[in-house]
């Protein structure tokens, strides 16, 4: 491929990425521009606990086949198959392909807050916790509001998080291992591949320096 053609191809890929929001295409193009002498190295053993990062054929299997529910339990057969149940819910691009926050906000679903009292409403707690991180990665914003619209304080405190400054050593590695935020995220809530959903607060120019 001539230099001109190669440059044109890369520019086109970047333009396409910009127009259609396909950042991966842009990265691919940039990587192609940087790399033309590949080496082979096999992937290390892949973590299997992030069950929301499955390929399409393995996503949202019926409860009796999903490897999570007990196929010998009668309760398993009462559960609707997720593919059928999720069909009419707002879509997302990751995890189980449902935008649960939107589904809740737009009343596609109205989860019962108390199993004994159908009238009971959650106490929504509007508190944001911003966790600074190093480098140019945006800081993490943890919004209690979206979480308490569905969960109760006791779901997380104190078993997962101590509600005290400095008491929780949170790392992405622990989240990836299914601890801390990873108790839900990657299992029943959107997976770690959605960086921007948590790393959502850009640093100020002052903080970057």
């Amino acid at each position, binding site marked *: 491929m001539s230099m*001109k053609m190669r440059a044109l191809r890369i520019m*086109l890929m970047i*333009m396409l990425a910009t*127009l*259609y929001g396909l950042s991966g*295409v842009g*990265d*691919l193009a*940039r*990587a192609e521009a*940087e*790399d033309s002498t*590949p*080496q082979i*190295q096999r*992937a*290390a053993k*892949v*973590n299997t606990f*992030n069950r929301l990062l499955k*390929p399409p054929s393995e996503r949202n299997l019926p409860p009796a086949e999903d490897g999570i529910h007990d196929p*010998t*339990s*009668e309760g*398993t*057969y009462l559960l*609707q*198959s997720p*593919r*059928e149940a999720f*069909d*009419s819910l707002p879509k997302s691009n990751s995890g189980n392909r449902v935008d649960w926050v939107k589904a809740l906000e*737009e009343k*596609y679903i109205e989860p019962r807050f108390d199993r004994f009292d159908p009238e009971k409403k959650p*106490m929504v707690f*509007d*508190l*944001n*916790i*911003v966790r*600074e*991180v*190093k*480098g*140019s990665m945006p800081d993490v914003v943890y919004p209690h509001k979206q979480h308490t619209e569905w969960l109760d304080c*006791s779901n997380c*405190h*104190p*078993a997962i998080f*101590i509600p*005290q*400054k400095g008491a929780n050593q949170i*790392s*992405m*590695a622990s989240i*990836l291992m299914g601890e801390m935020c990873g108790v839900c995220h990657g299992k029943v809530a959107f997976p*770690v*591949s959605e*960086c921007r959903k948590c*790393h959502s607060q850009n640093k100020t120019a002052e903080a970057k320096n």
Partner: protein
Amino acid sequence: MTRWFMILFAVLAFLSVSAPVPKAFAEEEPKAPPVLKPKKAGVESRLENVKRLLEVSSGADRVKASGNADAIAKREEAIAAMVLAEESFKSKDYKESNEFLGQATTLMFEAVRMVGTGNVSKEKKLDDYNRRAASVNILLEALERISTEKKSGREVETQKDAIEAKVALSKTLLEEEKIEEARRELDEAYELVKVSIEELRGGDTLIRSLEFATKEEEYDYEIDRNDTHRMLIDVLLKEKRKTESIDNMVSKFVTQSESLRKEAEAQAAKGDYETAIATLDRSTKELVRAIRSAGVYIPG
């Protein structure tokens, strides 16, 4: 070169016209609540599952072996509903079939409840009580800290007294083995402490700053960040690395990253944490490049 730019301009203009309208600008109609229409595949799958519920589940085994005439009769009713569901399915009335399946499931669960223990064990109740008590205690401690921080007045003190009184009463009731009453008092204390915290903290934003006491501590943070990105490669790129060209690109960056990581570890071993941190940062950047090269954009 001018010709190339003219072609580029033309392509750009075409793509601008054909690009999808961003959602923010599209007119959005108010959505009606969704109505679930049973589809053939869904009902077919449910037929299979309900059949297993009635025939081979542990609940079915318990009902069959129970000798409980009422439970057995209830299961027979469930089977009759299942037969109707199958007939409706054969006549392509999936809505009706789905309704019969719902009836069959409900009836079967009634049968299972008739033979099951049905009672929550004392250990379970005690375990639940202890979990709730742990939440109340930790939230009460949080309330005290927030109250001090915000210099809240007498009203919060009164609330705290009321919560502590309920917790104390709950403990007494538990000692008297009145576990249901004890739990009720504890739940009331729990609701009160939640409301009190919300009144003080609602609307706040708390910043958890990143501060390191020593360079060694910062090095440990960078090691964790590096490990994390290495794990992300395994988690995010499993499928993508099946394409050889992508795998090659990823491998190249990963190899560079590993080399830098070793370099950093050697620097840290000599106590030069400042240099090790900078080297580790470069190693992590290589991993970010690896992930991006496979078409997954991650910030950083």
